[in-house]
């Protein structure tokens, strides 16, 4: 029991502490790829520390929903961090499956979109409206891709999928697996506000989605929101890394095995980060109303992945 609690705390700390590093590494890498020096890799930590020290300005128009949202959002990310297989195949909330995970992300988005409307500025409303549109259209891809994984592993339980793939690597060696991976990768781009869906570096009114929605936040509220956004990216990357390439994860709670597992996990994350940076520097942002086409494409990939299971059995 104590071991489990310690592992749960470590896992949350890995996600919470690793997320700003991931964002920093991604930013630096993208800058280098386009020939800029870019900020330090550790800059996001400094940014968070600065925001926590600053005074928060809260609009008089807002209600308690605006003030509660950063905590709700942060909380959904902490719970998700207890669900995603990272140190072990069965983390603290090891019963949980992919459906719960998806709905927890929706819970965060729901409150954030309400907060965007709460200040009564046109920016916030615009951001909320666009954010929920993108999130809603990504939903079918997520569920069908989950089906693709569940069909192969015969469970929707995250730990179950990881254990099954680790036991039976041949399951991963099929085109359906790759298709489901691509579908979820595109969903990650949409859900975490990356290029070509949303530009995390922009503050141009017409193109903002996520940034417009959180425009009214400042001080420690903004710190929590930004931190949660970084954790969301980290968690999505972890999911992609460990669901589709589960090898190397510790099988038991022995300290050495967990350390090795963490190193392998870091290597997988680096690989994914490089891929994401390459993609983000080579594509332009899509017009907002072309995004549904991209998501329809990802849905087609997920559907093909499922059909390949039915047709090849």
């Amino acid at each position, binding site marked *: 029991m104590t071991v489990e609690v310690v592992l749960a705390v470590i896992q949350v700390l890995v996600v919470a502490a690793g997320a700003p590093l991931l964002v920093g590494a991604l930013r630096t890498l993208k800058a280098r790829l386009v020939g800029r020096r870019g900020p330090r890799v550790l800059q996001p930590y400094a940014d968070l520390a600065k925001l926590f020290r600053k*005074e*928060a*300005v*809260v609009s*008089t*128009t807002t*209600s308690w*929903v605006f003030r509660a949202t950063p*905590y*709700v959002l*942060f*909380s*959904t990310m*902490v*719970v998700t961090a*207890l669900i995603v297989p990272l140190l072990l195949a069965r983390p603290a*909330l090891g*019963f*949980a*499956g992919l*459906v*719960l995970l998806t*709905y927890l992300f*929706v*819970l965060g*988005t*729901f409150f954030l*979109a*309400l907060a965007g*409307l709460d*200040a*009564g*500025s*046109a920016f*916030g*409303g*615009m951001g*909320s*409206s666009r954010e*929920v*549109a993108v*999130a*809603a259209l*990504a*939903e*079918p891809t997520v*569920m*069908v891709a*989950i*089906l693709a994984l569940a069909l192969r592993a015969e*469970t*929707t*339980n995250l730990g179950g999928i990881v254990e099954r793939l680790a036991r039976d690597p041949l399951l991963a060696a099929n085109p359906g697996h790759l298709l489901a991976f691509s579908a979820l990768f595109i969903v990650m781009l949409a859900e975490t506000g990356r290029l070509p869906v949303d530009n995390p570096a922009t503050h141009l009114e017409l193109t903002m989605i996520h940034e417009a929605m959180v*425009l009214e936040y400042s*001080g*420690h509220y903004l710190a929590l929101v930004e931190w949660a956004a970084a954790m969301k990216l980290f968690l999505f990357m972890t999911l992609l890394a460990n669901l589709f390439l589960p090898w190397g994860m510790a099988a038991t709670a022995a300290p050495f095995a967990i350390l090795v597992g963490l190193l392998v996990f870091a290597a997988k994350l680096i690989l994914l980060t490089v891929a994401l940076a390459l993609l983000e520097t080579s594509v332009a942002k899509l017009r907002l109303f072309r995004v*549904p086409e991209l998501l329809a494409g990802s849905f087609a990939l997920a559907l093909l992945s499922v*059909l390949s299971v*039915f*047709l090849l059995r």
Partner: protein
Amino acid sequence: MAALAYAAAVAAGLGGAWIGVAGMLGATWTVRSEHVVPLGGLELAMDPIAGLFLALIGISTTATSLYAIGTAGEPRDDPAAYLAFVGALGVVPLAANAMTFLLAWEIMSLASWMLVLNRRDDDVARRAAWVYAVMTHAGLACLLAGMLLLGAHTGSLRFADWSAAAPALAPAVRGAAWMLLALGFAGKAGVIPLHVWLPLAHPAAPSHVSALMSGVMIKLGVYGLVRVGFEWLGTAPLAWGVVIILAGAVSAVVGVLYALVDHDLKRLLAFCSIENVGIILIGVGGAMIFRQAGLEALALLALVAALYHAVNHAMFKALLFLGAGAVVHAVGSRSMEVMGGLIKRMPWTAGGFLLGSLAIAGLPPLNGFVSEWLTFQALLQNVRLEDPALNLVFVLAIAALALTAGLGAACFVKAFGITFLALPRSEAAGRAHDAAPAMRLGMLVFALACVLLGLGATVVVPVLGGVAAPVVGAATSGLWGDTARLSVSGSFAHLSIVTVAGALVIGATIPLGVLALTGVSRRRRLYETWGCGRMLQTARMEYTATAFADPFKRVFRFFYRPEKRLQLDVHPESRFFVQRIAYANPARSIFEEWLYRPALGVLRAAIARAQRLQSGSTTAYLTYIFVTLLVLLVLR
């Protein structure tokens, strides 16, 4: 006086809930009286599924009647029709023969029709009542025809006899009876494309009646579909299940798409009822297919999911309708575009509406999440069916359900955000006051039910398993894990909703505590919203409901076929000085334009022809009678 009638309804509701829960847990009984009406007399019978629906009606009636005490005495009040309505609602699930069933069904329809027609001077309400009367009686005609057909071929009008005789029926008779009964029940449930009455009638009724109509009356259509699909006609052929699951998927997506672009708060909720009936029918259809394939355990899971969602929807939809009623009462309009900022003026109603929005969007740890989760787990196991075509149907249902969940969340961000947040968009919204204590109490009952049905999933699911097991013919009521954790199909999926709720609370408390202890959260200043340097923030700068729904209107352009109406009044001297701009961008209903209008056109033409028979001359009428007599004699 009216308050007394509602107090009686509260008592009746509590009694109904008590009897219903007892029946749900296994108490069966029958009451019979052959003397009051012909054709088999009146007969009531209790079994678990009837008990479930009676309990649902009882609890809903209790809370809506409490709310109605708070609004009693208003000019639109009609307590007599209300009492008849809730009484008939309670009899429908207990009816054990066609006569009793149809009598109760018709009283339920007529009483609710009178409640819809409460404002006789209002053209919109009159039209709503007219469409409702036509659609509900078309449905009644289908039910009557189907039941008489079954009665003629089985020689009995008792439902129990039908179940016994059904396997021996000729397939054509069985198919025709199913089609007629399914059409009648689907019309009452508001399945697309038989839904046209629902978004008209539900908003026109007083809010406590809307809550009952959306929460439980349309559920009785689902009840009928379950009875027909599983019991009255024996094991349903594959095609029936496929029809139901596809109808459910279409209703879910189309219902939520219309809800997204509707800015009448109560009509939005009515469209959303169509969506939720769709979700329930996806479960029912899935259960029918699994049962036909011999997978009783999966059929049980799918039906439990559907019944759970039916119960949940009754609770959160009633909560939302009561909240919307309080808002409409305070603002004096149903249009969301004149609301806003109500969270500060009506904190209780806002809290209830937010809880209902979270529940209906299927967000953990509330009840809507549990039933949607169960539905997904049932659908995801379709790989155990052999036929790839059936697998494809399930994959489409999963995608439709996922899209519905996403769009539903977006819809309720709009419904809550535009109605309750930011600045008031009208003077009336700025002067709004919170609901009366009795109204709050009614909402509180439903809000509590939403929380308890979510956190108590491990207790609720085995009970529903007991209700559904005899319906699908499963030997056991299923294995559902222990009180701490819900388990589905062995190790396929688990859920411990209490743990998730606890983790969410802890996850929010830690940063809250840390920031409060370090004094960070005290560093806060109140100031106006940032607005690019303009002088004053007004409600005109807020995002409107129309603007919020615009991305969806563009993405689903092929479905909405929106019209753009732009009217510019310019200054007579120069067209560059615009004096007034009127802009509207309404969505058009493809069902009305492509289905109902042509069908009504054909009907009208046929009636015009038939009118020639009605010449007004008595001699001609006598000739008709004579000819009819001759024909009948010859046919004998």
